[in-house]
């Protein structure tokens, strides 16, 4: 229990550091959200001041930060100047889309990657192992935004199977029944999810294969075999389960790059999620929205890596004994 509290505390410190750094850094650059609109000779300095004060952009960085922390404590992330709504509302609109995209991709990629890695390890050195190995090697090397473009080109332009972007068809009749809506949503999901799965599955399969081969040579696995446990059971219960630990840990570590990848993939497929929101916020110098996006992203990363640690500890009981280091699996 003590360890859990410590982890939460560490996570909190990380989030606080990231929030502070982002808050300061976005303000260090010249200009502000109103630079384009307000640096205008026809406006009096007093009017400019009034506008900046209204949006909490006056005063030193220190006072602004104090204001921001105070409102954050009340659950208020500030006002987004570029989308003209509270930051929390902008994020609430975008977050479900990103979660849908990332969540679906993670689930598919983990199931596929773990299965592929197990198939590889079971037939180590064989033709299947080599083929999957070559494919995952390429999957590891493809730049995310380029893969998304290639997917778009192949799936939407050449094959004409899937829509070019967005989350839903805007021309659907208003009273469309739910199976139609669901199918439409699924069709829009295919290409971005496929892109993300290809990117995700490669490292998962590689790690799963390595970890499984490592466990298959371990003493307790040999002991189980010597006891006369069936080969399938040894593979599944003794080797596979503990080999999942590093894979789950890696899932936690990979979360930041997933959010990074979302920036590109959402942009290519015009998917209105967090990545696109953040990119647009940055372009518009929308301070509060930028900080809000980075904050929400970091919180999810921290929660994700915490969850990953606990799941891998559950999978491999040795981890809860000494030698357990947060954020670091066995591999």
């Amino acid at each position: 229990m003590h360890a859990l509290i410590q982890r939460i505390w560490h996570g909190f410190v990380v989030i606080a550091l990231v929030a502070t750094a982002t808050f300061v850094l976005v303000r260090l650059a010249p200009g502000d959200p109103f630079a384009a609109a307000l640096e205008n000779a026809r406006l009096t300095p007093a009017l400019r001041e009034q506008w900046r004060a209204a949006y909490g952009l006056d005063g030193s960085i220190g006072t602004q930060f104090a204001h921001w922390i105070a409102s954050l404590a009340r659950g208020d992330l500030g006002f987004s100047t570029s989308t003209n709504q509270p930051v929390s509302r902008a994020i609430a609109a975008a977050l479900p889309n990103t979660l849908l995209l990332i969540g679906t991709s993670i689930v598919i990629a983990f199931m596929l990657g773990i299965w592929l890695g197990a198939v590889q390890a079971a037939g180590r050195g064989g033709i299947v192992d080599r083929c999957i190995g070559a494919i995952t090697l390429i999957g590891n090397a493809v730049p995310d935004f380029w893969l998304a473009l290639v997917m778009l080109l192949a799936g939407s332009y050449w094959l004409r199977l899937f829509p070019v972007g967005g989350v839903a068809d805007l021309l659907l009749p208003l009273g469309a029944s739910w199976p139609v809506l669901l199918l439409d949503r699924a069709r829009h999901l295919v290409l971005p999810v496929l892109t993300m799965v290809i990117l995700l599955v490669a490292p998962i399969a590689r790690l799963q294969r390595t970890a499984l081969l490592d466990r298959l040579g371990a003493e307790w696995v040999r002991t189980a075999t010597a006891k006369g446990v069936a080969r399938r059971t040894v593979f599944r219960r003794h080797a596979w389960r503990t080999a999942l630990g590093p894979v789950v840990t890696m899932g936690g570590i990979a979360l930041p790059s997933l959010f990074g990848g979302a920036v590109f993939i959402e942009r290519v497929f015009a998917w209105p999620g967090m990545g696109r929101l953040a990119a647009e916020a940055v372009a518009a110098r929308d301070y509060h929205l930028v900080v809000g996006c980075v904050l929400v992203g970091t919180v999810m990363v921290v929660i994700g890596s915490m969850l990953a640690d606990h799941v891998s500890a559950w999978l491999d009981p040795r981890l809860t004994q000494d030698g357990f280091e947060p954020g670091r699996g066995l591999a």
Partner: protein
Amino acid sequence: MSEPRRYRSDWRGAVQRLSADPRSVVAASVLLGLALLVAVGPMLAPHAPNAQLDITKLVHVPPSRAHLLGTDVYSRDVLARVLSGGRISLLFATSAVLVQTIVGTCVGLFAGLAGHRIDAIVMRGVDAGASVPRVLFLLALLAPLPHVPLWMLVLTVAFTGWFVTARLVRGEVRAIRTTEFVHAAHALGASRLRIAMRHLLPHVLGPVLVTSTLAVGHVIVLEAGLSWLGVGVQAPQASWGNIIADGTEFLSIAPWVSLAPGFCLVAVVLAASAFGDGLRDALAPGQLART
């Protein structure tokens, strides 16, 4: 607890093992070949990378004898741009990785040798740095700036990429700082700096080298991504990322513009990661059995 891993400075043996491994040899040849190509290619190319050859007749010409990779929307020769852009992309990645490796190694050595409290503070900072989505952070940092010179771009990218190396070095140092030879060096009166540079650094050099090789692949993709988003290498200077960006808008009518530099990126990353894997196996032959 696991016993400290031993990396003997068996560099000659490592080079021998490396040159006996066909995968590493192929990877190294691809990397060297590409480096050579982008180094001398722009001089041999029939067109200048930024020359707009004929903006009425030569826009979006598909790959042909005259233009091996076709032309883009400004009638520029894509091959010439890919060669010239490759120069920037490769130089960018190697220099950024060099900087982030040096910074990461120094921080790692420092944290590894420091007392518990300083170590904890530094490592929390590293944790925070590693938790931030790197692309998002760089985007937030770079987008507002009107014009970022290339060297500053390299430094900015490098300063968001040293966390992994720092964590690695710090872990290795923590593992070997209590071994006999470090105690012996200390007893003989060696200063902390000397112990760090002469005794600990050679031990961590192997893993650091492996991480850096793999990082070249990451950084070249990162640079391409930033340039694609418009905050990296700025036009008219070509880089693989912004060539892809030039083609993105016209993907359906001129896919060759975006496809060519993408394949180059895949080749570099593939070669860098294969070489990194080979290097790891060559440096730690005891673990060879695992893969």
